């Protein structure tokens, strides 16, 4: 079923802002409350907004099932292999080898300071991003699977 023009326009306007907010929550996961799971859920809610506002056959062209499956599997693999990358350097699984003085996210954080510096925490932002990608893929796959059960008149 297609919603009214008002709902569709509101969904179009709100969609990019929800995406930006979700990415903000994911990227700032090591500084502010939030993280990969929460931000991924917000991103998936943006997908749900599109799926609800438009007809199933129209919205499925934008929220593709194969793309979401790839995101889901890729996110989980990225997460596992980011954790595995420490073992290549001779450390334990999940060792945060980027954290003090690494190339990426390697700034040294002042202990006791609440000042937010995005370029800290080593592997944690990468893992947050991986989990966010995985969550948006998984929740979107679930939503698409549930919506595909609806027989609708075109």
């Amino acid at each position, binding site marked *: 079923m297609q919603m009214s023009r008002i709902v569709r326009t509101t969904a179009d306007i709100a969609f990019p802002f929800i995406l930006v907010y979700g990415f903000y929550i994911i990227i700032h996961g090591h500084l502010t409350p939030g*993280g990969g799971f929460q931000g991924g859920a917000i991103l998936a809610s943006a997908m749900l907004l599109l799926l609800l506002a438009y007809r199933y056959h129209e919205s499925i062209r934008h929220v593709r099932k194969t793309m979401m499956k790839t995101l889901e599997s890729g996110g989980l693999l990225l997460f596992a292999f980011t*954790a595995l990358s420490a073992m290549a350097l001779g450390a334990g699984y999940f060792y945060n080898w980027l954290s003090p003085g690494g190339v990426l996210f390697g700034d*040294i954080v002042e*202990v006791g300071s*609440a000042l937010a510096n995005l370029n*800290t925490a080593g592997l944690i932002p990468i893992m947050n991003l991986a989990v966010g990608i995985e*969550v948006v893929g998984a929740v979107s796959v*679930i939503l698409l699977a*549930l919506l595909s059960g609806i027989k609708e008149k075109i």
Partner: protein
Amino acid sequence: MRRRLSIVLTLLTVMMLGVIVTGLSFGEPGAAPMDDYFIENSQSESGANNVVTAVLFDYRGLDTLGEAAVLFTAALGTTLIFRRRRDD
């Protein structure tokens, strides 16, 4: 019999709730040393300002990996249940 059992169970639940409400003091957890360790050392050890994220992705990273795997399995199961049949 069933009525008596339900009365006993209700009284037991109320008693347990009462113990929770009256016995434990709010804001003073029993396992404080572990919390203090995380609050004091997570910034220097993991580099993350957010202690919760430091615990989630550094100290208990394997748990988060399992959590992500659970979500993956949930999506897999939902897709299996709602899969397209051939006669559709």
